[in-house]
């Protein structure tokens, strides 16, 4: 099997960072293309961040606008935190993909299109009267490389004996090969991957390899490209890495707790976009002490988790907005019964069914206040795809240590986005201890399930423990025995005690750290998935020598002890959110006198650094 032509003699230009977006029909395999290129970039030692953008429909009609599927990748020699605002390179496999994405492409950016797909019929489906590629503006604004990928793929596979349908499916490997050439990636390893991936279908494997090479060689031979680029390796901490999406990281985080403690992790969930993959991933981890249960609905999902928690399992449930709404009553029960459980809410566009495949941060106030009665629960938000791993461990640790439900917020962007994850050594992981009560704790040798320790935490005695038989439930309970009590003063005491316990969790909340000046003009305060964009914005403005600091809130309840002081150390606090200003409101309510400036987008996308930077400059 002939190896592809040796790397170009033509000049190789060094660049720091590149953002590529692959777009095509749901059927065009863009997600695969993107992931493969991501792997190669990772192996090349780049730091990276990715963000897929699926259509809501499973398989929209070929060529339709709403059927376009995209995958964006930002790879760099520096350490980066976002998949990039605007692509430098757009690879568009058909007119619909071109139409829905070209506006995002950087002016002067490189536009690679499959000219072969710009047929009358496809143009019509995308609502074009004429071929936009011939449009002068397009020619001026971008470096247009129109390649007839369709035809070149066919040529490459002549006599392969494959059906034309099968041949068409190989087109994405042509695009991949072309990009490999353009960024000088290691083709040998990719060829291995292809052969592995299609091991069961050798002819298909061979075909994809052939087309991949064809794409690579096309770059080498055809004169359409000025030259190739090289993005040097980033200076990442040494270690073993893997690429992870937020959902995968969340699953891994929970499983890690099971392995660490030797206890069972129980996940009771009901599928819902964009949280479903957590359940998928955990369903595979049977040999790792993970038990998964797909319940009949969200209520039964969390119900099963609370039941398992009563039995001593490290229990969790995973969902998204509509599911969180359905779980509200159950969270209240876990709160009053004081049973540990983690509720993962992968935020998506709302209200109601809203925009299931788009990201949003609009469930913050719901997570904080979304239960009847006084029902405080700790709330943690993950800040990046890989951070979901640590956030999941931390949430479970908090739940079992404090005997309380804990809400973990992630979002559609974190869930589906990916970044390299440095595999930690076991010792370095946050430790989770589990202690089941085994002895009576009452004066008269009885067991008092609500007798608390100094931190106000009640003991956890589980079925199977002789002599500690007890009953718990959702009615207000006597402060020691846990028996039903309608006494008003007992109720007031219990309400305050539950609140005090959750307030005590602050001992586990690290003080807020600030990057940039400790005092100054503007503090950018981010929470959850906007971390990357806000951090990048801060670095940009700091590089411009401006008095801008950045702090990130990982804990939403309790808030870090020093938060008030930090907020008051800056002339202005800017709170960027993908919602209408929920954290800003929460801060005003929590710190009288503090009145943050808001920066809100609610368009289903991660925040754009350029927009946020511009808004920040205006405050300076």
């Amino acid at each position: 099997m002939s190896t592809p032509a040796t790397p170009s003699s033509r000049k190789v230009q060094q660049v720091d960072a590149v953002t590529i977006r692959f777009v095509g029909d749901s059927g065009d395999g863009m997600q695969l293309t993107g992931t493969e290129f991501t792997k190669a970039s990772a192996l090349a030692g780049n730091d990276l961040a990715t963000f897929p953008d699926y259509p809501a429909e499973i398989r929209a009609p070929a060529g339709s606008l709403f059927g376009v599927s995209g995958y964006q990748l930002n790879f760099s020699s520096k350490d980066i935190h976002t998949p990039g605002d605007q692509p430098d390179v757009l690879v568009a496999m058909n007119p619909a993909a071109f139409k829905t994405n070209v506006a995002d492409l950087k002016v002067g950016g490189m536009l690679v299109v499959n000219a072969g797909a710009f047929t009358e019929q496809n143009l019509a489906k995308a609502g074009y009267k004429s071929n936009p590629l011939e449009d002068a503006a397009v020619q001026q604004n971008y470096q247009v490389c129109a390649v007839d990928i369709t035809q070149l793929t066919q040529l490459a596979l002549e006599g392969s004996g494959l059906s034309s349908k099968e041949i068409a499916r190989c087109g994405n490997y042509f695009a991949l090969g072309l990009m490999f050439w353009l960024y000088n990636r290691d083709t040998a390893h990719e060829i291995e991957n292809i052969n592995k991936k299609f091991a069961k279908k050798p002819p298909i494997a061979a075909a994809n390899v052939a087309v991949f090479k064809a794409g690579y060689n096309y770059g080498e031979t055809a004169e359409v490209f000025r030259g190739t680029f090289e993005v040097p390796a980033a200076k990442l901490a040494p270690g073993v890495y893997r690429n992870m999406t937020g959902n995968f990281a969340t699953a891994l985080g929970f499983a890690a707790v099971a392995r660490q403690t030797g206890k069972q992790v129980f996940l009771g969930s009901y599928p819902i976009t964009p949280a479903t993959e957590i359940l998928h991933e955990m369903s595979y981890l049977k040999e790792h002490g993970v038990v998964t249960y797909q319940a009949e609905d969200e209520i039964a999902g969390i119900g099963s988790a609370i039941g398992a928690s009563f039995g001593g399992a490290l229990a969790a449930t995973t969902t998204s907005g509509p599911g969180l709404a359905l779980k509200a009553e159950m969270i209240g029960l876990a709160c009053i019964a004081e049973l540990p459980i983690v509720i993962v809410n992968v935020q998506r566009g709302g209200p109601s069914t809203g925009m299931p495949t788009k990201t949003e941060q609009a469930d913050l106030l719901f997570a904080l206040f979304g239960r009847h009665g006084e029902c405080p629960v700790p709330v943690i938000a993950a800040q990046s795809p890989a951070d979901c791993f640590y956030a999941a461990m931390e949430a479970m640790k908090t739940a079992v240590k404090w005997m309380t439900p804990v809400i973990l917020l992630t979002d559609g962007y974190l869930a589906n986005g990916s970044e390299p994850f440095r595999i930690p050594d076991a010792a370095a992981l946050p430790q989770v201890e589990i202690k089941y009560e085994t002895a009576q704790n009452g004066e008269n040798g009885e067991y008092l399930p609500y007798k608390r320790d100094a931190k106000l935490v009640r003991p956890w005695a589980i079925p199977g423990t002789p002599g500690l038989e007890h009953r718990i439930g959702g009615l207000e309970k006597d402060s020691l025995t846990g028996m039903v009590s309608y006494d008003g003063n007992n109720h007031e005491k219990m309400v305050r005690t539950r609140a005090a316990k959750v307030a005590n969790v602050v001992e586990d909340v690290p003080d807020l750290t600030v990057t940039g000046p400790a005092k100054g003009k503007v503090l950018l305060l981010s929470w959850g998935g906007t971390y990357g964009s806000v951090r990048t914005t801060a670095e940009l403005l700091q590089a411009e020598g401006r008095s801008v600091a950045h702090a990130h809130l990982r804990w939403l309840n309790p808030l870090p002890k020093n938060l008030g002081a930090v907020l008051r150390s800056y002339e202005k606090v800017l709170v960027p959110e993908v919602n209408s200003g929920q954290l800003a409101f929460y801060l005003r309510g929590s710190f009288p006198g503090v009145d943050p400036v808001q920066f809100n987008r609610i368009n289903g996308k991660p925040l754009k650094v350029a927009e946020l930077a511009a808004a920040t400059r205006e405050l300076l």
Partner: protein
Amino acid sequence: METTNGQNGSTKGALPLLTKKDFESGVDPRWCPGCGDFSIINQVQKLMPNVGVPREKIVFISGIGCSSRFPYYMNNYGMHTLHGRAPSFASGLKISRPDLMVWVVTGDGDALAIGGNHFIHVMRRNMDIKLVMFNNRIYGLTKGQVSPTSELGKKTKTTPYGSPDYPFNPPALALGAGATFVARAVDVEGVHMGQMLKAAADHKGSAYVEVYQNCPVFNDGAYTYMTEKAVRAESILRMEQGKPLLFGKDNKKGIRFNPQTVHLEVVTLGENGITEKDILVHDATHSDPTIAFMLANLTGKPGFPTPIGVFRDVRLPTCDELTWQQIEEVTAKKGQGTLEKLLTSGETWTVK
């Protein structure tokens, strides 16, 4: 071991000899004087010493309702949960802890109104849970509203002119959902109720026991049509495994299957040549649930007695068994996982 979080206790070896008293929590039941719930808890507490499971491994889970106060009065591990949701907690607990014996105590509103979905799913999955439903055909705790088992036309606080809703036939619903064990008892027949509860305890898989329960305050006399001494013999059909379906005083009447009409009919022994061998012999162990369903549909049918006893009792692998069998197979195949293996699975690369 992960199944049981290392607190397994032991079902092996002899159990300590316990009595009814050992299963009383010491809290006096707060049911109204004369409530049928008393006779039910009495039978359950009598049964507990004889189910062959240590007390600390028996869990009672309930929803909300008068009936659902039950766990507070049992000296076991117990959860008084949310209205309608008990089966969901029970399912999670049973899957997580197959070593436990899990009971659900619920009411007709709790199980069949708000809880209907969890009810049919726990039956469908054949989860090894014993669900006892106190059917008083009314919402007791909220003081007398129509329930999904209240009769059509019933006058209640929310249906002052009569209910426009048809009631469920609970055993038929359970059978339609795939229940492997379905039985019916009556609060005033303690001994029989005890037998039904024992049969449920002995059944491996989802077990549904409907108990007709009188609510003297909001639906008094709901079952007198069948429980009054005078009519009892004529109006109750006692189904017993392997026995012909006879009833009536001195068992002169019987249920016959009429092949022409393909339906059940009431016949009288000795009348137009009917002998005992014409009578349908009860077999609850049939894999096909149809006969059980047919008997369930005699309930409330004009001219027919109300069947009590075991409608169906069939052994199938349970959801919890299948789940753990799979976990063991996978673990055997892949080997016990370690934190190391977990973290390094999948494609990795190394940065020097």
